[in-house]
Structure formats: structure tokens, C-alpha cells
């Protein structure tokens, strides 16, 4: 019989937490009416995490683990987990005991209501202010710009339909954008409040500097969502202000020559006109290049449509 649920947990230097984490999951899993597996991804830990995992695997039959050669980051660890998970449903959670496995059944219930992704919302966060503030800012911006409205994108505790998440190619530190990326393909996203505990062991792997990385990711993700299927449009929209600016400066330049203003003025205007004109040409040319890249890529929209299309009448093939 196939596995129904895979719990994917990225771990990085969590040797103190692993044992407790796995035992708490095993405790919860006793009540599951279906089969499950725990998939630990050791993201190149430098402490004894892998040793602990090996020990555990002898006593916990549902445990599977992947070890990275070096530290690749949380998103890569999650993607590796998605690739190797055997379940139809995948739940991801943090390895630092801050998420509570007792929330998993509730996530699954919500998923059963017909959603493709259910995200956790840490209503009462037990973190230091310096962690919460940047996260709040990032959440607000993601909510405003991506069109997917959640309270808490950064929460690792999420449940996905496996087919839905595998179709998303993640890179960089994109895991907080999985819901936004998936909704681009029409997936339905929901959110439920989950418990959140204080960190018991180890140190947080996040710092304040992350806000800049996250901001640039937000920018990238928005561009991808808007323009990945017709990039030339995007570039053309960017070029329009420069075209207008260039025309404006050419006009000023002509006026300067016609009314014999000082020669310096005419030259400044011409310089500006040429510069903005060149920028416009450059943007359009890059737009064509982008269009070519999309054209030759394997980005198969058909594949995505199969996942999100819902049947009202008649059967789906």
C-alpha cells in the first residue's frame, strides 16, 4: 500500500532537537488512520545531527532521511524532500520544535475541504522582536504584491498536495512563496492558526539582514508571476516611460535650437534624450530575448492546467 502522508523536515544543526521532534511526531502519528512517513533532510549539518538520525532510524520504522553534502539552505532541503516523498500529501515543518505536530490533523482536514495548500499561521509567535518585525514587514509586502492573502508566509508548517507542489520549481530562498507560486497555477490556498513554541535548543538561523534577501525575492517572484508567460509586455511597459522621456528631451532640444538658447542647454537636452532613448531600445531588445527564453523553455502550462482544472460536469480525463 502506498504512503498517504509524508512529513518533510529540513534540519540544520539540530542534534538536540531531533530526538524529541521525531518522538513527538511518532506520538501524534499513532492516531493517524492512514500510513505515513517521516522524511528528514539533513541540510549539511556540522554537528551530530546525522548520527542521531541514524540511531533513530533503527527504532523508528517510518523514518527516512536524506543527507546533503553541504549546507544548501532550507528551500533546497524542502525541494529534496518533495522529490523523495512518497506520500500523496506532504507536510513540511521546522526542525527546531517550534511547530507542533499535533496541528497536522487539522491541516489535513482543511486540505480535505478542497484546498491544494494549507498554510499554518503562527497567531501567537514565541520569537524575539527582532525576528517578528522583519517577518511582519515581509508578510505585509507579499500579501500586497502577490495577490495571495495570508497572514504568515514564513511559517514552515504547511500541507501540500504532492502533485501540486512538485509542479513548482523552487529556487533560491523561495519556500515562503510556494503558496503564491502555486496560486499562479490556480491552486487554492487556505490558512489556519497553528501553535508555536519557544525555541528550546540551539540558535535561530535567521538574522535581520534576511529582510533584504526576502525583499529581492518578493520582487523576483512578482515579476515571474506577472510576466513569465509574456515577458515582452513587461519590458515594453518599462520602456514606455523612457520613450516618453526621450521624446520630451528631443522636444526641449529642438526648442533650444529654434529659440537659440545657450548651446550648453541644447547639448544637455540632447544628451538626456539619447540616454533615455538608448535605455528604451535596450529594454525592448531584452524583452525579445526574454520572449525567446520563454519560447524555448519547457514551461508547460498544459501540465499545470491539469492540476487546477476542476470538473463541474462530465469526467476528467
Amino acid at each position, binding site marked *: 500500500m502506498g504512503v498517504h502522508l509524508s512529513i518533510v523536515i529540513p534540519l540544520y544543526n539540530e542534534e538536540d532537537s531531533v530526538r524529541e521532534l521525531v518522538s513527538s511526531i511518532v506520538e501524534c502519528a499513532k492516531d493517524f488512520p492512514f500510513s505515513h512517513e517521516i522524511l528528514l533532510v539533513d541540510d549539511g549539518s556540522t554537528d551530530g545531527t546525522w548520527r542521531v538520525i541514524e540511531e533513530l532510524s533503527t527504532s523508528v520504522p517510518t523514518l527516512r532521511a536524506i543527507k546533503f553534502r553541504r549546507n544548501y539552505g532550507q528551500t533546497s532541503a524542502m525541494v529534496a524532500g518533495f522529490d523523495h516523498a512518497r506520500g500523496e500529501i506532504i507536510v513540511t515543518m521546522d526542525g527546531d520544535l517550534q511547530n507542533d505536530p499535533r496541528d497536522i490533523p487539522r491541516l489535513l482536514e482543511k486540505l480535505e475541504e478542497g484546498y491544494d495548500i494549507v498554510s499554518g499561521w503562527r497567531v501567537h509567535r514565541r520569537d524575539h522582536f527582532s525576528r517578528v518585525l522583519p517577518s511582519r514587514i515581509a508578510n505585509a509586502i507579499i500579501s500586497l504584491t502577490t495577490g495571495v492573502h495570508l497572514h504568515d508566509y514564513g511559517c514552515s508548517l504547511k500541507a501540500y498536495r504532492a502533485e501540486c507542489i512538485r509542479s513548482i520549481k523552487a529556487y533560491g530562498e523561495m519556500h515562503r512563496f510556494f503558496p503564491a507560486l502555486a*496560486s499562479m*497555477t*490556480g491552486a*487554492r490556498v487556505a490558512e489556519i492558526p497553528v501553535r508555536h513554541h519557544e525555541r528550546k535548543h540551539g540558535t535561530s538561523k535567521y538574522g535581520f539582514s534576511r529582510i533584504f534577501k526576502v525583499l529581492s525575492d518578493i520582487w523576483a517572484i512578482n515579476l515571474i508571476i506577472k510576466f513569465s*508567460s*509574456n515577458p*515582452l*509586455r513587461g519590458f*515594453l*511597459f518599462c520602456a*514606455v516611460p523612457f520613450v516618453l522621456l526621450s521624446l520630451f528631451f528631443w522636444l526641449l532640444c529642438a526648442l533650444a535650437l529654434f529659440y537659440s538658447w545657450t*548651446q550648453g542647454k*541644447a*547639448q544637455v537636452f*540632447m*544628451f538626456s534624450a*539619447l*540616454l533615455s*532613448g*538608448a535605455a528604451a*531600445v*535596450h529594454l*525592448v*531588445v*531584452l*524583452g*525579445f*530575448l526574454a*520572449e*525567446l*527564453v*520563454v*519560447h*524555448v*523553455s519547457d*514551461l508547460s*502550462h*498544459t501540465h*499545470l*492546467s*491539469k492540476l*487546477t*482544472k*476542476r*470538473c*463541474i*460536469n*462530465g*469526467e*476528467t*480525463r
Partner: protein
Amino acid sequence: MSEGTERHPRYSAIVLLEDQDSDLIPLVDTLHRVFSSRPAGYEIIIVANGVGGFLRRALASVAMCNGALKAYEFPSKVSQSVCLKAGFEESSGEIIIVCGSHRQITESSLMRLLDSLDEQTDIVNSWRTKRNDSTFNQLQSRAFNALVRKIARCQVHDLSSAVKVYRRSVLEQTDFYGNMHRFLPIIAEGKGFRTKEVECEHYRWTGKTGPCPPYEYIERVADLLTLYFLIGFKNKPLRFFNVLGTFFLLLGFGCLSYVFLDKMLLGHPVGGHPLLLLSLFSMVLGVQVSSVGLLGEIIAFTHGRHKRQYTIEKIL
């Protein structure tokens, strides 16, 4: 053979529902009437693109027509190409009729459209010769179609009409994405499929009239540029960029020579010469455009090779 046609309807109509269009049910009725007058089997597939529960409500009020009606929806908006592909995946007919959600052409025209798909034709476009909408809309549409004719060097008069008839192989062998579904007949023609236009009577106009917001015009321009690029240069991008690059390079070189001659013959100083600036800018731009083209060529070479560049009509 007859059993095969029983199981697989000959006609599949794909109705793309983009908004809460109250004309949908009359359109479905019309399609039923048109197809029932023919011996071959048919099916009607409605694909709703992020219109909420509208389609469910609309269908609840109609008696289900002996299983010939299928309906699918996307919970949130996706591009129209995706909708069309989704509808196509669900279809099994040998002849595919794609239409929007309102009655654009009259019933008799629809009949004629279906009849004119003969052995020599793969695609039939409708051409609304007598249009029932505002002069501005007509002019706008004509200008757009004229531009398309110019760019794609093909004979098409009414691309904006949403009613089109395709043979199954056309949709199977032509790839389109983003907004390119609009130009599907042209892209298919570029692959060697034979297109035909049939004059139709316009039923009535239900959309908006008057000028669109400016960004829509920019989008159209972008679509046309994309079409131009993809038709002519997708396999040889460097040519496209080189033409542009060479233009700027020559412009720059010409201006520079003029400045030089001016200095040599008439003794005007080079320093303050306005054309000096132009020539330098232009030459830099030319080099940059060409190098972008080189990048494009590398992309086409490394990633575009798996794309088939030909379509096979028959293998004996």
C-alpha cells in the same frame, strides 16, 4: 468504424468563458441546435476562467443535454492559452470549434463555417463582414488586422472574431502560450496548416465600446512584436538582433565620419559637435544589441534544439 465515431464525437466545441456572460446559455442552445442537425456526434466543453460560481449556477438552470455537455473551471484566472489547452485536453472530437462565451455570429453562419472545412483545409476563420458594433470598434479592429496581415504576411481579415474551427492535429502540433492563442491560426499557418476564411454575419456586439485604456494598446503592440519575432526569428535570433544592431552601428559610424569630415574639410571643432554624442551612443547601442543577439543565439542553440522545427503531414 461506425462504432469508433459513436465513442468519439466528431465535433468538439470549446466555449471559453471569461466573465459572467448571460449570453452563455443561448449560445449553448445554438450550438446544440447546429450540431443536432448533423448526423455526427458532438460534445460541448465549457471552460470557465475564474468566474466564481457563475458557471455552476448557470448550468443548474439548464436541463443537462444528454451528456454532450462538459464543464470545467479554473478557480482563479489563468491565461486564455491555458484555458484553451485545458478544453482541448478534455475534448475527443476530430474537429474542434473554439468560441467565446457569447453569440458572435449567426446560426446560419456557424453552419456555413462547419461546412467549409473540407479535405483541403485545416483551419476555418470566421470573418464578420457586416459588423454590428460601433464605428470606432470596427476601425480599431481593422487597423489591428491590417497590422497583423503586414507583420505575418498572411491573408486574415478578422482575427479578433473568437469563432474558429480547427482540425484536431492543428491544436496537437502547434504550441502557444501566454497571449499567443490569439494568433493561433497564423502560427499554425506558419507550420504548414491550410487556412480558409469564411464570411459570416455578425450577430451582435455585447462587449464594451469605445477606446480601451492605454495599457491595452501597449499590450497589443507587445503581442504583435512577439508574433513578428516568433514567426520570423525564433530559430535564428541573431539575425533579428543583428539587423537592429547593425543599423545603430552604421548610424553611429555615419555620424562619426560626418563629424570627422567636418573637422577635416571645414575645420569645425570635434569637441562640441552635437553629432559626436549621437554617434557614440549609437555605436555603443549597436554593439550591445548585437551581443544580446549572441546571447539569444546561444539560448536557442542550447535549449531550443529539442523543439521540433517541422510538422509532418503524412507518413506512408
